[in-house]
């Protein structure tokens, strides 16, 4: 292989996504004929799948020109003076975002075919969204990462807004857009101050300067940190920047909600890891209490809000606020040079969270279409079981991915000396039972309110999506039993990958 060519190979997944998105735009007119061959869905699916496989392959077979960093075998390849950085974390994000897109696609297509949706553009926007997420992962400087987030955000605005016939979707997109722009401006302000503190926005430069800032510039950096944290908190829906999420999650069509709750949040967290663990690693002492406070607020308020909700979708929305709290626990535990374990844990949590919520929202979408959740287990046993499984994963039940993530993240809090935070997180888990259990009970109950028989059969794509995500939830969860040699090598891969992704931030 031509070494020149090989050196640029790590960019391939991202390039593929962007080109695929642009190609999808060209194909949009084809959809005018009603797209009987489903050209667009196939195209989008193929692009996402190839990006996923490509990223996986790249991770499994570190390519020429990638220097290992640290003992875990993590690698990093920089291009254009560090503006683009491909490493284990960015590849993982591509995999996650592509997987998110891929698993959402059938539901989205189904929703649009049921009507009320602009069919053509959504494929392009989905691909754009995933590429935006990929750019966040590959960004070598803060502003590029921010732009990636904006690409993702605007694509999601579009995805919500494409459902033009439903007033709630319009309301959702309006709120999301206005508040999103507001938050972006705040984040930009923060970045401006960070730029002021170090003279550059590239992560490497930030890291170098943040390690030993003179007091004056330290003050500037703190202003920047505060505003950036606020912007990030909005993106991940942490209290008190969370209020948009319930309305937007509710208003958007459920597949889009699922995509938002997973890909957008995970991407925002990866961005947060880049900014805080890489760029601002030197300020760990400063942002640790800040994030811990946000985490506590998110866990507390999120739980209280979730308990009072009557619509499952809003409950899940606030549940994801609570989960942001957990992830913030992990992020704040990663402060300091010994935070590798916490970063690793957070990465695993992100994976678990993404898969679990994808499954949950997919099931919710299917079940709410056909008679609601009451006694769904008798109408759609498999889908309802998958839903229960994902709810258990959200609770953090063992043998589900959720447990794995929760266990590792909470343990990292204890390890970081934030035992109080760990204990609060467990309290929060206890509180969260107050809304997860009723949902489970509702699914299993036989109140007789819903219809007795299934009317609508979920599409094949949807079924596969639910099956894949829930199987992965269990498979990763079973990783705790992954005793060398005879079970679930996937779990080991994940652990290894997470270790590398964590280590890449702590050279």
């Amino acid at each position, binding site marked *: 292989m031509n070494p020149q060519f090989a050196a640029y190979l790590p960019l391939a997944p991202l390039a593929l996504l962007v080109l695929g998105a642009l190609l999808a735009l060209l194909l949009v007119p084809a959809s005018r004929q009603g797209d009987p061959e489903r050209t667009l869905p196939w195209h989008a699916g193929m692009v996402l799948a190839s990006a996923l496989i490509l990223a996986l392959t790249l991770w499994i077979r570190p390519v020429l020109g990638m220097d290992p960093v640290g003992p875990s075998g993590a690698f990093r390849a920089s291009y254009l003076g560090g503006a683009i950085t491909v490493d284990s974390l960015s590849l993982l994000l591509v995999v996650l975002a592509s997987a998110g897109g891929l698993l959402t696609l059938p539901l989205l297509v189904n929703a649009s075919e049921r009507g009320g949706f602009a069919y053509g553009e959504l494929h392009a926007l989905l691909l754009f969204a995933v590429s935006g997420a990929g750019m966040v992962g590959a960004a070598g400087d803060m502003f590029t990462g921010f732009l990636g987030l*904006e690409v993702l955000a605007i694509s999601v605005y579009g995805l919500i807004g494409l459902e033009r016939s439903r007033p709630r979707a319009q309301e959702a997109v309006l709120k999301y*857009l206005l508040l999103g722009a507001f938050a972006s401006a705040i984040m930009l302000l923060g970045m401006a101050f960070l730029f002021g503190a170090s003279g550059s926005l590239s992560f490497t430069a930030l890291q170098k300067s943040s390690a030993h800032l003179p007091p004056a510039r330290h003050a500037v950096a703190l202003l920047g940190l505060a505003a950036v944290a606020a912007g990030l908190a909005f993106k991940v829906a942490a209290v008190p920047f969370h209020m948009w999420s319930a309305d937007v999650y509710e208003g958007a069509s459920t597949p889009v909600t699922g995509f938002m709750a997973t890909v957008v949040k995970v991407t925002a967290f990866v961005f947060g890891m880049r900014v805080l663990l890489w760029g601002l690693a030197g300020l760990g002492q400063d942002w640790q209490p800040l994030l811990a406070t946000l985490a506590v607020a998110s866990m507390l308020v999120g739980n209280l809000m979730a308990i009072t909700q009557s619509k499952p979708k*809003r409950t899940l929305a606030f549940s994801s606020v609570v989960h942001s709290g957990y992830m913030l626990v992990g992020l704040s535990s990663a402060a300091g040079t010994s935070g590798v374990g916490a970063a690793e844990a957070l990465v695993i949590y992100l994976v678990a969270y993404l898969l679990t919520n994808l499954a949950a929202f997919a099931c919710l979408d299917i079940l709410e279409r056909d008679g609601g959740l009451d006694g769904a287990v008798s109408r759609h046993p498999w889908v309802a079981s998958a839903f229960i499984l994902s709810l258990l994963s959200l609770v953090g039940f063992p043998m589900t991915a959720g447990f794995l993530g929760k266990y590792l993240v909470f343990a990292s809090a204890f390890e970081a000396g934030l035992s109080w935070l760990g204990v609060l997180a467990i309290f929060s888990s206890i509180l969260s039972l107050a809304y997860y259990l009723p949902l489970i009970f509702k699914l299993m109950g036989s109140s007789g309110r819903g219809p007795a028989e299934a009317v609508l059969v979920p599409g094949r794509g949807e079924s596969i999506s639910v099956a894949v995500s829930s199987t992965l939830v269990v498979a990763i969860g079973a990783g705790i039993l992954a005793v060398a040699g005879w079970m679930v090598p996937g779990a080991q891969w994940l652990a290894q990958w997470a270790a590398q992704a964590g280590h890449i931030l702590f050279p």
Partner: protein
Amino acid sequence: MGLQAPLLVAAALFSIGVGGFVARRNVFSLLMCIELMLNAVNLVFVTFSRQWLAPEGHVTVLLVVALAAAEAAVALAIVIMLFRHRETLDVDVFASMKE
């Protein structure tokens, strides 16, 4: 002239924009408040660029302008869509979702 004056102006503009954003109900006003905030950010960038003598700030300002344009485009599209359906520019009308 030093850092403080431009930064204070930027802070003032940003705060006014923020204050307007939480106060106004008219969609266009909200959009313009955001523009105001973005402009304040730009001023900060330019100021620090001057301080560091780094052109990166200028570059960023240009890109922020483009970003503002993009956001405006989408926002206006939404406004058009909403106005078409609801015949109003009042954001408070859109409060159907709450528990």
